[in-house]
């Protein structure tokens, strides 16, 4: 079991020795059981930290903010940022390393093992509790969650309320870290592509109408892009104005900027945004599930990314985020690639 005291101790050590610039973990929201990303800057603040099954956020995404901050400052403090990462999150660090977006000493990693559980899906929890309001959600013993409701303790088998991605996770133990908390327990993820099997049975035109229906309600709030550890581009084709414009950009350059996607939320533009994003995530998405979690109108984005993950695996034998030295899928070719047009 991951010990919260040990986590606090490690963070305190890293902060008081000056090894890290600041530390990002999780803290409770108000008096409730839900959590949010917490920025810990002083050793005495480590008591805010929690570690619960509601720590689903992937904190790796905050490394983009740090990189941008550094680029703006004249004499930036270049000490690493400390992060708590789960197995899936740790794979996204590997992708950032692979792409040389960050360097290994930009981040100090405290990895936590998911052991026999993982993080929960709130909708599943609510369905399971059937109207009852949880007061606390905790890890139980041996693959269960413990939920406190009306001062009673309910034990729930993990698979009943686990996030979908945890059910199919190939890395319940961090693949890269400086310190690891919790035991390395192997878990058989079963069929890693279970969640897309129904989708794969659909005919092409059925799939097309399925996605049309889904994307027609997209608001283009871009929360899916904002939360993604892989969406770090300063300039995204989806933006109607490229805000990577700087004081040095000439008027002529600005006038020549191609606008790929219009701002209107019509189906054509929504689909363009999502398909470009899906292609740009092929071989990069680590299935942390954050994009799907944050979508306010619950568009099943995981389905799209999972399908791309499977394609990368089947066509190129490519697994995402296990090896920081592996060349990125879309930036390399190998002699044994199935297509020959590139050779």
């Amino acid at each position, binding site marked *: 079991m991951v010990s919260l005291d040990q986590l606090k101790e490690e963070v305190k050590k890293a902060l008081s020795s000056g090894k890290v610039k600041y530390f990002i973990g999780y803290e409770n929201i108000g008096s409730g059981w839900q959590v949010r990303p917490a920025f810990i800057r002083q050793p005495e603040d480590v008591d805010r930290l929690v570690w619960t099954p509601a720590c689903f*956020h992937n904190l790796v995404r905050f490394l983009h903010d740090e990189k941008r901050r550094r680029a703006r400052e004249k004499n930036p403090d270049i000490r690493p940022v400390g992060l708590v990462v789960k197995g899936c999150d740790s794979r996204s660090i590997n992708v950032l390393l692979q792409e040389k977006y960050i360097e290994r000493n930009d981040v100090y990693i405290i990895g936590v093992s998911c052991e026999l559980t993982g993080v929960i899906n709130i909708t599943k929890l609510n369905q399971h509790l059937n109207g009852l309001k949880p007061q606390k959600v905790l890890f139980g013993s041996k693959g269960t969650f413990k939920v406190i409701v009306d001062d009673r303790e309910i034990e729930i088998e993990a698979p009943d309320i686990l996030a979908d991605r945890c059910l199919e996770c190939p890395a319940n133990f961090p693949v890269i870290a400086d310190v690891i908390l919790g035991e390395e327990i192997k878990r058989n993820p079963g069929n890693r592509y279970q969640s897309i099997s129904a989708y794969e049975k659909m005919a092409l035109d059925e799939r097309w109408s399925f996605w049309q229906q889904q994307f027609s309600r997209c*608001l283009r709030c871009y929360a899916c892009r904002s939360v993604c550890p892989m969406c770090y581009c300063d300039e995204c084709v989806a933006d109607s104005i490229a805000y990577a414009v700087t*004081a*040095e950009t000439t008027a002529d350059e600005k006038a020549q900027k191609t606008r790929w996607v219009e701002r*209107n939320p019509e189906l054509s533009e929504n689909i363009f945004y999502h398909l470009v994003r899906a292609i740009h995530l092929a071989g990069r998405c680590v299935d942390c599930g954050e994009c799907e979690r*944050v979508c306010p*109108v619950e568009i099943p984005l995981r389905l799209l990314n999972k399908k791309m993950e499977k394609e990368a695996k089947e066509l190129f034998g490519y697994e995402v985020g296990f090896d920081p030295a592996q060349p990125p899928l879309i930036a390399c070719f190998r002699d044994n690639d199935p297509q020959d047009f590139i050779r």
Partner: protein
Amino acid sequence: MMEKTILKSSFPQWIKSLQSFKVFIPKRENFGWELSSNNQILEIASDYTYPVVPPKKLIFPQEEIFFEFEQNPDNGIELKEVLPEESPQVIFGVRPCDGRAVEAMDLVFGGSFEDLYYWRRRRQTTLVGLACHQPPSENCFCLSVEGSPYSEDGLDILLTDLGDRYFVKALTEKGEKLLSEAPSLFKEITPKDREEKERVHLEAQGKIKRHLNGARELPEKIKAIFDSNFWDEESSNCLRCGICTYLCPTCHCFDINDETKSLAPLRGRRIRTWDTCQFPDFTMHSSGHNPRPDRASRLRQRLAHKFLYFILLYDRFQCVGCGRCISLCPVGIDIIEVLTRARNHGK
């Protein structure tokens, strides 16, 4: 003002009588409730909470076409004005906070310069409110921003659920017109109906759990800490997505773009779309300078618009306490908590 009751069993007939209107009724979708005009639904479900996307989208749609342009053979440009269709609509199940939000938007799009497009839709819209029995969200805090679960502001009719019937209060001429479409369905009220309605309203009020104390002190306080690093700390985990503003029933900021469909001959349209102060390009100048360069200034802008500038302009809050931005924020930024800490900052 007219007060009546209608049996729930007669409700479908009332809806059916509204032939000349496009009728929107809450529909359950897998992502939550949506205001739908699919004509199949003839009642308001008993477990209805509130729509994820607020009713503002039916008056101030995410996309509004202003005009189309086309180059003609002698190289002139022809403009074709596009106006919203003339089609009266009725929205059922508007929660009192969302009704007050429409009233707040009326102030923005009205006044000395009337927004043609907004008012064309607004004048054709009848808002049928539904008083809350239960707060639809655990983050409701309407009482703290001068609203209530039975507020009538901005609505044309307020319905109160009395079990087998609704208490119907028509508040405007538009509301009365809706009752006159099926007059035989509405009954005179009895003292008991009125008593029950009062009880339901009071009970609902007691069920609201969240409160933002001293909201009227906030304008001064926000001014006082405007340049403080308070905002940096509060916004440290903000993702700069558009959820809190796009789904806020009062946020009304927009962008105007020319969309070119063809360059030769030149053809396209000018459109207005939602925009948000939370996107970095919202304030980007063509010089490359951005006066709101970071998340701190953008979070401050969102809250200051609602709890400082709007008060200075209109003497009311631009937040109606619906709780959507709290419930939907992916990283738990909670407007009640942030403002409470702002109020206590430096104390």
